Structure formats: structure tokens, C-alpha cells
């Protein structure tokens, strides 16, 4: 039998072949370096900075391709101390229970956060840690400064926090930054392989052991949303606005902390509370979507906002259609302290990669 006799279906073979070759060649071309570089053609530079006793002014030069439409610029004063490069450890242990987070969050927060940081070339890489690994990080208080532990499962594992154990507080005091999400921190202490029960609820007492009294208001309220962005939330385009277990604004003032989120009444969705040489970065509510939370967290940590002094300024720029570099003069609404200011610029479009930061000292 002549295998070429069935020419009437040759077109189907052609379609299959063309689909295969076309898709593969196109994908290889678009992922080649020259094309990638062309697509990431947004750049910001500081042409000049003037810090006087009367005003702080900076001049920016922005070069961009025609598809770039927007740029957000933020600035905030810094204290006179060095800002460390942060190493991040994300708790992800499926043997332990979670609460007040979507099922995909415990693993997803690591995947998304590491991706958000990697696409912006943040070094060093993010590390996933089990409950035992988390305990190891927390016990190493000597290396706590410059380290961040992210626990966004709504439950602290019992080997690091329980009625009889608290590895978190000494580590934070020593300089570590504990990031929390999923209800109230300290409420649950989960056991390996056990679903949560009333025996695992440390309740308000657990929260107070970590944060102190009058920091989180009980009872917490599921689903409560903030509707007024703080200065930092506006500056960094933060979207997380759940305040069900949010931090009281009064306690932020009392502890020289920072409001980084959205406010509802006397509560904020994201707060940074310094403790000793470190601090707690609290996302005060449920975590329904690890993707957007990771973007917020990446921006907060990469910008160094937790090292800010409370003030923040922002500017939203609409870029011209032409590819000609643009110059922007910006008079800041605050004076530069000895530590200078942190200037941050980023493309606020969804999934955009561009992120620029520079510490400008007087």
C-alpha cells in the first residue's frame, strides 16, 4: 500500500507540523536575550539631589520605551544607620495546620515571594524552611540581624511557639524581622500532623506574649477591610487591606512603629512594630491570595520601608508616548535627616518588573 496515497489529509499533517514548529520557534525567539532586554527598557536615574535646611529636591531622569505608561516614585527619610541586605526564610511545612489563609497560601507564598524577588534580581535567594528549619533559624540569634522570617500560615508551629516555648521573641529582640499573616499572631500553636483543636488555641494571651497588650484588638473580625491608605501604602501601591486582626494605630505610635497598610478606624492592615533590634511586620487579617500579598511584601522589603521614620511621599507619573527621556523635578515634603532619603521607583502596572531604589545621603 502506498503510504502517500492519502494526500487528502496532508493538510492535517501540515497543520500539526506548523503548529509545532511555529509555537516552538516563536517561543525561543521571544525568550532570547535581545528581545527580553528590549522589553525591559525602563530606567530611572538621579541626576541631582539638593538637601538644604529649607528643602529637599531631587531631579530624576526617566528613559523608557513607548509601551511604558506609568511610573510611581516614592521617597521616605531614613535614620542614620546602615540598611542591611535582607535574607529571607519562608516557613512552609505541609505537616502542620494552617488557619485564616487560602489552601494554596502556605506553599504559594514561598513560590510567589521568591519569584517576585528573583524577577527583580534581589539577592540572596529566598529559602523555604520546615518547622525544624524555622526553629534552627530562630535559635541562631547571633545571625538574626538582616534576616527575615515569613510565616503566613496563620499558625505558628508548636516547636517555635506554644504555652511553654517562644523562640520568636528572643530572635526578634536580637535583630530579626518576623513577617506574619493569617489572623492574629500567637493565637494558634499547631502540632505536627494534627488538625487544629481548642487545645491549640493560645488566644489573646498568645498574641500579647509576642506583641504586648493593646496592640491587636480582640475579638478579631473576619472580612473587615481598610478603606484609607496610609502614606506608605500609597507610596508603595500596597493593596492588602484586610484589618480583621489588624494592629491598633495607637500602639504603632506608642512603639515608634510604621503604618504601611490600609486603615479602617483605628486599625491598619499592615504594621511594622520594632522590638529590640528587630521587629514584627504584621499583615493583620486573613490571606485569601498569596500573589498580591507577595507583591506587597516584596515591595515593602525591597524598598527598605521598615527602616523608615514614618513619613513618606509619592508621585505618580504618566509617561509620555514618545521614547524621549523625561526629566522630573521633585520637591519633597520633608527635610532629609542624616541618614538621607530612600528613593524608590517602580512600574505600578500588574506584573511589571521594574524596581529601582537608591539611598541618597546629604
Amino acid at each position: 500500500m502506498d503510504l502517500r496515497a492519502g494526500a487528502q489529509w496532508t493538510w492535517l499533517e501540515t497543520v500539526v507540523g506548523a503548529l509545532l514548529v511555529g509555537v516552538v520557534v516563536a517561543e525561543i525567539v521571544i525568550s532570547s536575550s535581545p528581545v527580553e532586554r528590549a522589553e525591559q527598557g525602563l530606567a530611572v536615574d538621579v541626576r541631582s539631589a539638593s538637601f538644604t535646611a529649607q528643602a529637599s529636591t531631587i531631579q530624576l531622569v526617566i528613559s523608557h520605551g513607548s509601551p511604558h505608561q506609568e511610573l510611581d516614585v516614592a521617597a521616605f527619610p531614613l535614620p542614620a544607620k546602615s540598611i542591611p541586605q535582607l535574607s529571607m526564610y519562608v516557613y512552609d511545612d505541609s505537616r502542620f495546620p494552617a488557619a485564616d489563609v487560602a489552601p494554596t497560601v502556605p506553599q504559594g507564598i514561598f513560590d510567589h515571594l521568591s519569584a517576585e524577588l528573583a524577577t527583580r534580581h534581589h539577592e540572596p535567594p529566598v529559602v523555604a524552611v520546615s518547622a525544624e528549619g524555622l526553629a534552627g533559624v530562630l535559635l541562631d540569634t547571633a545571625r538574626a540581624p538582616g534576616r527575615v522570617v515569613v510565616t503566613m500560615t496563620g499558625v505558628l508551629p508548636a516547636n517555635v511557639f506554644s504555652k511553654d516555648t517562644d523562640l520568636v521573641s528572643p530572635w526578634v529582640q536580637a535583630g530579626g524581622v518576623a513577617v506574619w499573616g493569617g489572623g492574629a499572631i500567637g493565637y494558634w500553636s499547631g502540632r505536627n500532623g494534627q488538625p487544629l483543636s481548642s487545645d491549640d488555641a493560645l488566644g489573646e494571651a498568645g498574641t500579647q506574649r509576642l506583641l504586648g497588650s493593646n496592640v491587636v484588638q480582640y475579638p478579631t473580625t473576619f472580612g473587615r477591610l481598610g478603606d484609607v491608605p496610609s502614606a506608605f501604602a500609597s507610596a508603595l501601591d500596597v493593596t492588602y487591606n484586610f484589618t480583621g486582626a489588624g494592629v491598633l494605630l495607637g500602639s504603632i505610635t506608642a512603639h515608634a512603629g510604621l503604618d504601611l497598610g490600609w486603615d479602617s478606624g483605628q486599625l491598619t492592615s499592615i504594621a511594622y512594630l520594632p522590638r529590640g533590634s528587630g521587629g514584627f511586620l504584621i499583615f493583620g487579617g486573613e490571606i485569601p491570595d498569596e500573589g498580591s500579598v507577595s507583591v506587597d511584601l516584596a515591595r515593602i522589603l525591597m524598598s527598605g520601608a521598615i527602616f523608615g521614620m514614618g513619613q513618606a511621599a509619592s508621585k505618580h507619573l504618566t509617561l509620555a508616548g514618545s521614547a524621549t527621556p523625561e526629566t522630573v523635578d521633585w520637591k519633597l515634603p520633608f527635610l532629609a535627616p542624616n541618614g538621607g532619603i530612600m528613593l524608590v521607583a517602580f512600574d505600578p502596572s500588574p506584573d511589571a518588573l521594574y524596581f529601582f531604589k537608591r539611598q541618597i545621603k546629604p
Partner: protein
Amino acid sequence: MAHPANRGSAEQAFRTAAEALKAASGVAQRAYLRTVEVLRAGATHLQLPLGPLTAGLVVRLVLAPFAAWNYDDAVWFHTALSGYYGVPLYQRPGFSYPPVWGYLLQILGTVIHASGFGPSFFGVVDHNFAPAASVTSDYTDVVTAPGFNLLFKVALFAFDLLTAAVIYRFVNQLTGKPKRARLAFMAWFLNPFVIYESAIHGAFDVIVGFAVLATLILILIGREYWAGAAWAIGILTKLSPVTLGLELVLAIAVMENSIQQSTRFTVRRLAGFGLGAGVAMGCLVAPLVLQGSVQAMLHNVFARAQTPITIGGISISGLRYLKPFSGLLVWAFENSGTVIQATTTAQIVAIVLWAIWTVIMVRKDPVFGLFTGSIGTLASFMLLSPIANPQYILWWLPALTVFVFASGRGYWPFAVISLAPVFFSLAILGPTASLAPVATYTHLIPASVVNNEVIAWYTAPPRLWGATLADDVFAPASLATVAAIISLFVVWIRLAREEFW
């Protein structure tokens, strides 16, 4: 097979095969050779029916821009943006499928970038929908823009049309009746479920359906290499065609096993199929290898899917939508390991049984054996899944369309399968859920209304037999579809008994 005497219509190819069998019982190669001969010689260059073609395209183009199933389309939005920004497909989590559809979206994103459009071309985050997203967990505040909706859905329409063309020509070739072929074309291209999935939902399962249909036809005409390539495209689109592997290999082996020098030919055919599949898979994975993303793909496709399971959808577990069985949902969630083990075992058994069926039937009638075996495998895999989305039907609906219209049997089940899943899909978050682009990009309906309607539907109490209002619709839609599929299986068994024993 498909004996038309007591049904009023004869299918030339099937009858030819059956007569050959009767004339020389046990001589399987005659059936095979005759079928191949009919397939190779019988086709003419048919022009597609212009009226139904135009109507199908118009309906799709009208619906596509302002309707979206935003929970899935948000993933396409992010994936296309990764192409726009030059980020490798799997560098960011979210796209948890094999790469073919992701490549197409990335190419689209790159083209949009090169055309000078900004990222807002793809869509926006509309916080008006945040409450619905929070309450339902099946909604999102990402709203895809009309232009993007239209562009990515046009890619799906192309596969709708390709599939329609294959159905039309193949049915005509099998039956020699252009009118029947035209009906088959219309049954696919004007099918409400197909239109819903490509023009409203934006589901890419039609690519799998096309790949499966192409695989079967290319095997039947003796083009094993390209059949392997088509099969690989299907697998690297949505994995599910891998379930056909055993059946296809056995079918290829058995179809040739009584021809002279059979061993050599069988080995050659199998090698061709394997080589085609291997080369195609290698090509499709090559970009990921160059990007260093293979590990990331495996993580996104496999590891990220492992969460406690829910049950339901268009599967046997759809029983849980009836109030007396509503407790099954919680039980399955708490016993995920047991459920996964049981359903996986059942699926493997079903795959093996359909492979045996194919081996037996393909010797008597290659078209009957290969088509019923493949449809049966994919449909059973879906029915036995813990949760099966309606769009999974598209994996095997093209092949079913061919078979029903070529054999003249199974019209009623086909009609049920074409309608009930539409009601199921609309009931997930209510009929207004797909209108987010209308609300965000026009003033025809406020976003708050869509948001509130979605929440109201999702939280509404039952009025009939379900645990919720949605369950009231899910139950009949799911169970009717399951019953229709099972009735098809019964029809095939009867056909086999009538024709071959």
C-alpha cells in the same frame, strides 16, 4: 458496527468494514485495509458550509470581548503579561499547565508589546470585585480588557474552526454524505457548549480536543509519526491525553498484526508513533530547557496542584450536589488521601478496560474501536476524577461528534452533553458572573451590581434538592451529563453486539 438497517441510515465505511468481517470472519486485516482504503480514497476537497461557519464566527466574535470567566482568564492575563515583560513562562507561579497554551499566550503578549500597546491593554485590577473574590474564592478582581479577550479567544476560535473542518471532512469521508457532514459541522461549530467555552469562558481545552481528534485520524490513515506529534501536542497542552497512551499503542500494534511481515510493520508503525511523539515533545520542551525552566514547569504543574481536594463537577461525585449526599464534600476534604487513592485506582482500571475494548474492537472495525476506545477512556477518566470541570468534555467532544454523526447513533446523549454543561457552568457563580468586562469597560451595568449578584448567587439558599441554590442547578446538569455518557457506553456495547457477535 453502526448497522443502519434498523436505524434507517447506512454508514458506508462502517458497513464496508462489517461486511468484510462477515465475509471473512477472523481476518482482521481486511477490515483494517478496507477502512484505510476508504479513508484515503474517499475524501474530496470539500468546501466548508459557509452559512453555519459565518453564524458560528459572528456569535463568537460578539460574545468574546465583553464576557470572561475571570478566575481562569486572570491566569491567561498574567501569562500573556509574562510574555509582554519577557519573563520566562514558569518563573512566576500561576500557570499550572504544560506549556503549549502558555507559549501561545506569551507570543500574544510579545506581539502586543511590539505593537506599542501598554500593559493596560490586557486588563485591570478592579477592586469593586474584591468582595466577590473574597466571599467565593472562585472570582477575582482582575478584569481582562475587551481587546485582550478578543485576541486570545480568536486563537481558540481558530482551533474551534480547525476541529470543525476535520469533523466535516472525516464524517463526509466515512459516510459519503455531505449533508450528514454538514450537520456534524454545525453540531460542533454551533454547539452552545463549545461556543460558551471558547467565546465566554476562554477555556483552552479545545486544543486538546483537536489534538486527540487529529491523533485518531492520523493513526487511522497510517500516518503514525504525525499522530504521535499530535498526541504530544495534546499532552503538552493539558496532560490528559496521556491516558490514551496504552490504548493507542495497542491499537497501532493490533491493527497491523495480521498483515504479512506484520512484526516488522508493527514495529515500524509503533516506532513512527513513538518517534513523532518524542520529537514533538522534545521540540515543545526545548524553549524551557533553553530558559532553564524545566524544573519550574514540573513544580508548577505537579507540586502546586497538591492541595486538599474538593469533589464534584461533571463526574460521578456530582452526586454530592443532592442534599442527602452533601456531606460527601466535607468527608472528601478530610479524607483527601483516600479519595485520591480510590479515584486514581478506578481511573487506571478504566483505562485498562477501555484499552482491552479497543484491542478487541479495532480488529473488527478500526474506526469504531479507536473512536469509542478513546472517547471512553477520556470520558471515564473525567467521570472518575474527584472533581471534573465542564470544559474537560472538550477533550473528547470532537471525536464524539464524528462518531455520533458517522454512526447515526447517540444523538440524544450528544444533545444532553451539548446543553447540560452550559447550565452547570452558568450556575457556578450565577449568570452575571461573566459580565465583569461589561461592567468595568462600559456603563451598561455597574460593577457593584455584578459583584453583589455574584455574592447573592453564591450565598443563596436552596429552593429544590441541593444544599445551595447553585447545587439546585448543578445536580441535574451534572447527573444528566453523567447519565448521557453512560448511555453512550451502553449504545456502543449494543452496537458491538449487533455488528460483531
